[in-house]
């Protein structure tokens, strides 16, 4: 079957089991529509990269079925490879070649030669901002430059489906934003389907049309970021009392507004507000605390985030669920360590007291 018009991804019951190990991917189903940006979110070790490696034909599948751009990844690997581009988690470059030589080489491997290859290389070097470094050996590139070149290599043959495995890890905020813009442009203007794995909440939230959350090899939630957050429902209010005695009394006061939870902030007490018409405002809550004779240092309201979705679905926070590799990104990288909380706070918090 030749389905050249189909740029989508279809996965049914996909399983990957390594020798003597648990199932890294345990029967996932997913559909990505042509031209869609699909964010695949999960902590380290959740099965994101394994899934990508199977879809790009770098790893054989153990069970299930997957088609990419209409081609079966198990039986039509060569056709899949012609249709896709991939920038994987670890950049795959040769330190002894220049950026331009890399692009020409990959173009030749894809059957693009001569002036067409040169023009393509020049265009891509411009698009990823590497014109000045184009004729320098890659061994001297910074981590961010290598990542940008790796992305350019994935785009050489104008793929219909693009796989980006944690593409912004290690990028500075400016480069990250530029990459997001480029990914959006590819999807909107060129109709490229983008399968993007990330452990950064903000990246998935800002960039993806739809998000799938994977944990321990299983997809635990799927939908648009708005849908997923709506599933969680009402916001959470965190209150930091002035004294320990007030902390003991606070849950009784807050319980009238919803369900008390473990707070993210040390020393705080949290409540997830009931939804619907009887949803309390911050003013009402502050008044109730005051009426109870309790004193507080701070009160904050958080709108639901994808981390809350992850927490609700798995009982764990996304930040702590993987290993500490998540903190290796650029300082302040979205979703890395405390930065995710800060991002949520910056956007949604309403400090009152």
């Amino acid at each position: 079957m030749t389905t050249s018009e189909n740029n989508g991804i279809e996965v049914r019951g996909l399983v990957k089991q390594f020798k003597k190990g648990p199932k890294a991917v345990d029967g996932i189903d997913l559909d990505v529509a042509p031209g869609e940006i699909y964010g695949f979110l999960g902590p380290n070790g959740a099965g994101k990269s394994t899934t990508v490696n199977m879809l790009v034909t770098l790893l054989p599948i153990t069970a299930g079925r997957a088609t990419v751009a209409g081609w079966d990844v198990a039986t039509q690997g060569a056709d899949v490879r012609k249709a896709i581009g991939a920038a994987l988690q670890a950049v795959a470059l040769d330190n002894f070649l220049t950026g331009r030589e890399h692009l020409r080489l990959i173009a030749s491997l894809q059957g693009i030669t001569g002036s067409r290859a040169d023009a393509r290389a020049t265009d891509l070097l411009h698009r990823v901002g590497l014109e000045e470094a184009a004729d320098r050996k890659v061994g001297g590139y910074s981590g961010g430059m290598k990542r940008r070149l790796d992305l350019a290599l994935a785009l050489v043959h104008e793929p219909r489906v693009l796989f980006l495995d944690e593409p912004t890890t290690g990028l500075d905020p400016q480069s990250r934003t530029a990459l997001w813009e480029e990914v959006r442009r590819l999807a909107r203007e060129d109709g490229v389907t983008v399968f993007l794995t990330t452990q950064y909440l903000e990246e998935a939230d800002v960039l993806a049309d739809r998000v799938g959350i994977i944990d321990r090899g299983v997809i635990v939630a799927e939908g648009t970021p708005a849908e997923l957050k709506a599933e969680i429902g009402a916001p959470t209010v965190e209150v930091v009392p002035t004294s320990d005695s007030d902390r003991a009394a606070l849950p009784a006061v807050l319980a009238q507004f919803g369900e008390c939870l473990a707070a993210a902030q040390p020393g705080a007490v949290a409540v997830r507000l009931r939804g619907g018409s009887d949803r309390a405002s911050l003013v009402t809550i502050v008044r109730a605390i005051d009426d109870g004779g309790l004193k507080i240092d701070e009160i904050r309201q958080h709108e639901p985030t994808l981390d809350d979705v992850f927490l609700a679905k798995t009982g764990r926070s996304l930040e702590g669920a993987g290993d500490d590799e998540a903190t290796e990104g650029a300082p302040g990288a979205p979703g890395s360590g405390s930065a995710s909380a800060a991002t949520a706070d910056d956007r949604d918090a309403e400090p009152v007291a």
Partner: protein
Amino acid sequence: MSTTFRAARAIAWRHLYKWISVPANFMPTFIFPLIFFTGFAGALGRVGEIPGFDYPANYTTWIFVFSLLQTCLFGGLATGFTIAGDFQSGFARRLMLAVADRNAILYGYMLSTFLRAALMSGIVTGVAFIAGLEMLGSVGEIVGMYLLSLSLSLIGTMWAAGVMFRARDPQLGPAMQIPMFIAIFLAPVYVPLALLSGWLHAVARVNPVSHIMGAGRGLLVGQPDDIGLALVSVAVLFALLAVWAITGVRSAERAGG
């Protein structure tokens, strides 16, 4: 031109380009064959005077064929290190993603190693002429000798590729080198087969490299002998190692590059 051949050509270009532009890659493949040739041709001239050493040309000519075979075979082993290095740096994944037919990676390395071996054979020949090489065979016979020796570059590459597509680690280089080292040194390197005795004679008699070496020496001096046996040896080695190399590529595919 098929996509596979185009991809193989691109892989070969990169390999040759890296070989020439990186001295650390270039120097060993360039210098070692010359050291071996110069060392043996210079030091062992008297060996040609041993009673029963029956060869119509001088000792430099005798040892030259060994040096050519060694240059070609070890050139293939050097390619094994390049393959392993690609896996270690992750670049092999990029190559495996970029080519539709992954056998093209193997074909590319075979092509570049063959071309490199041809160039190196030319250099070794030049040095051998300075050292007194005598070419007594006809043009056809000399071409035949070069083709026989160049076939070892493909055989060496397929062996090395089979090992390194499986191992994907340059540290296992000795495991790749030692069997080929043994194979070539267990042939009649310094003296004719008839002058070897004991276990070495028994092993050299059945070693396919002995037949290739013997045929090459015969062609060089215009006394072709046992060419059929040499061709069969090349064909059998080629067939077995082609399977070894292709299944190596499959092994790398299964491992995910």
